[in-house]
């Protein structure tokens, strides 16, 4: 029976020498039975002195109960135990020794330590989180607050009165209505959540409290207790208020800026409108009267005078084009995009038909590849091709056989549409000037133009969220690439129309 016990058992002689042990004792000490028997029992404790005291106590009182000691294993491991011990006698009734049984309480001690630790942690967390727990016995109106709740309310530890009314007295009166309503509701739902302001008792400061709690009901469904948390959220509230204020300010600023922008836009619109109307009229008059001068008095004018009049005519014509191009550029900025899924091949085909007059008498080879369907404003996209293709036709004029290619190519992982010609090209060092208004890279005598076309193209491409750039070499032709940023979900469906259409 002794062997079977899981608790370490031992008998000790009057002289303090171990006389018998069970297996459990061997296990807890790490010493063999042979070594244990005959050795001093106090050798195996962390506090031999205390062990001997206990031993003396057994002789003095006949027994000890729950005497706490710690056994040291040969490896150094310590086991907390409680001893129950009593004397035993021989047949003659003389005390022969002590019988002692140890109970391993290491696990219990661990649990106790952990519990203590987690209580301390909770208190720390509550303190750090400006929150504490409360437990309100509703039937008896006893409201127990943790020290942390008291601190939140600015009350010295243990000074809270402990009733519902004591709590109400601390709440800002205007907030009581909503808080009471939340309590009433919780009596039915079992869940409590509310917010209120308090006047902190120690310094009178107004603080925001957020509360969450659960209700406990008896078997009849009567609410018994409310258990929950009070948290001081003043800092959070202030931060929220600050965020709200900043947002409002931001919104206000956006409204202001938008209004300014709209005003600027309107002004620009008014400007282009008046340019459209007011600049064209005098131009028309110069053109008209100089024409009439030639018609009606041409025969009486010296050839030089006639030449001057021709220059006036040409000048007004050019200025007319310029004004119209500029107005068009301005209009694109204001133009409301009308997006449609459009096959670019059909746009190119339409453009080519319009270019017939410009191509007359030229040896032109068109290589039109398969272009995608894209979401774009078809009217604006046509302007893009009108400009790019007519440029290609124009700048390839010196070639006995001009080759103009339109297609789609992968550029740095993005599909780009390109228009390529074998014309006069340009030096790449001027590439940044290419898309500026009135920027021209060729002399007017060689190639006519207003210098607005590519600026217009760029404006349109940008309006579509895309990018345009050019690669060229002087006298070796130019390639214009552009992408469209707008989702080309239909890109996968490549155009059914093929290059053959262009023949």
């Amino acid at each position, binding site marked *: 029976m002794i062997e079977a016990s899981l608790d370490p058992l031992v008998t000790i002689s009057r002289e303090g020498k171990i006389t018998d042990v069970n297996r459990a004792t061997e296990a807890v000490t790490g010493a063999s039975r042979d070594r244990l028997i005959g050795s001093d029992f106090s050798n195996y404790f962390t506090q031999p002195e205390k062990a001997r005291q206990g031993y003396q106590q057994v002789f003095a009182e006949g027994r000890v109960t729950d005497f706490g000691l710690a056994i040291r294993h040969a490896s150094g491991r310590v086991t907390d135990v409680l001893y129950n011990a009593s004397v035993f006698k021989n047949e003659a009734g003389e005390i022969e020794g002590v019988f002692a049984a140890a109970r391993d309480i290491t696990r219990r001690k661990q649990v106790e330590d952990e519990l203590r630790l987690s209580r301390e942690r909770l208190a720390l967390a509550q303190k750090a989180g400006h929150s504490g727990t409360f437990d309100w016995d509703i039937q008896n109106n006893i409201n127990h607050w943790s020290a942390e709740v008291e601190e939140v309310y600015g009350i010295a530890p243990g000074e809270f009165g402990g009733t519902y009314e004591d709590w109400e007295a601390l709440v800002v009166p205007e907030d009581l209505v909503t808080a009471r309503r939340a309590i009433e509701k919780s009596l039915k739902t079992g869940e409590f959540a509310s917010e209120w302001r308090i006047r902190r008792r120690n310094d009178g400061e107004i603080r925001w409290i957020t509360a969450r709690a659960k209700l406990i009901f008896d078997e009849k469904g009567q609410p018994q207790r409310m258990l929950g948390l009070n948290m001081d959220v003043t800092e959070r509230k202030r931060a929220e208020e600050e965020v709200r204020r900043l947002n409002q300010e931001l919104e206000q600023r956006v409204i202001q800026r938008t209004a300014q922008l709209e005003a600027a836009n309107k002004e620009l619109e008014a400007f282009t*409108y008046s340019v*459209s*109307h*007011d600049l*064209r*009229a*005098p*131009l*028309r*008059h110069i*053109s*008209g*009267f*100089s*024409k*009439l001068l030639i018609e009606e008095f041409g025969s009486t004018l010296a050839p030089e005078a006639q030449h001057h009049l021709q220059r006036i005519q040409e000048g*007004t*014509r050019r*200025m*007319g084009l310029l*004004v*119209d191009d500029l107005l068009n550029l301005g*209009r694109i900025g204001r133009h409301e995009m009308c997006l449609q899924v459009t096959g670019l091949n059909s746009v190119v085909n339409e453009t080519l038909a319009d270019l017939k007059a410009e191509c007359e008498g030229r040896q032109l080879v068109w290589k039109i590849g398969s272009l995608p369907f894209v979401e774009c404003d078809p009217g604006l996209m046509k302007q893009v091709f009108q400009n790019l293709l007519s440029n290609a036709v124009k700048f390839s004029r010196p070639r006995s056989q001009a080759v103009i290619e339109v297609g789609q190519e992968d550029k740095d992982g993005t599909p780009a549409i390109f228009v390529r010609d074998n014309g006069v090209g340009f030096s790449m060092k001027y590439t940044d000037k290419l898309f500026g208004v009135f920027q021209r890279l060729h002399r007017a005598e060689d190639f006519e133009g207003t210098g607005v076309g590519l600026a217009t193209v760029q404006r349109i491409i940008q309006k579509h969220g895309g990018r345009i750039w050019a690669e060229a070499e002087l006298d070796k032709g130019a390639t214009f690439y552009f992408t469209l940023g707008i989702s080309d979900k239909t890109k996968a469906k490549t155009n059914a129309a093929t290059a053959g259409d262009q023949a």
Partner: protein
Amino acid sequence: MTNRQVEILLVEDNPDDVELTLHALRKENLANNIHVARDGEEALEFLFCDGIHADRSFDHPPKLILLDLKLPKVDGMEVLKRLKGDARTKAIPVVILTSSKEERDLVQGYGLGANSYIQKPVDFEQFRNTVKSVGLYWLLINQAPVVKPAAKSAGQS
């Protein structure tokens, strides 16, 4: 025909435009029966036989109105609105002849009942062709509306 009927009412404030337009019309012999109103107010008085034109009668509406938009006093859109909104004048064809081809002007002009909208070309040759085509179309090719029996009888007398 004692009271010679006005065939074209030209509403135009700019004297240069008036001269060039008349020049173009004259070349096609379309300028004989033309009246020029130099602002919107005068145009309305002419059409509604009012003010300085109180002696005119509704029996002789012009066959065509060439209307500029930017006008002193009463602007072209207002003139258009008033005459298209009145049963006595709404049948008269109105061609807007202006420098602007702003979308809002186009939309508003047609919305108010203009019969045609033409932007004056800068190039005089084109301008002349345009004025000629407009004059020929509305005066010779187009069948004029019969405004009133009275107008007819007056024309025949």
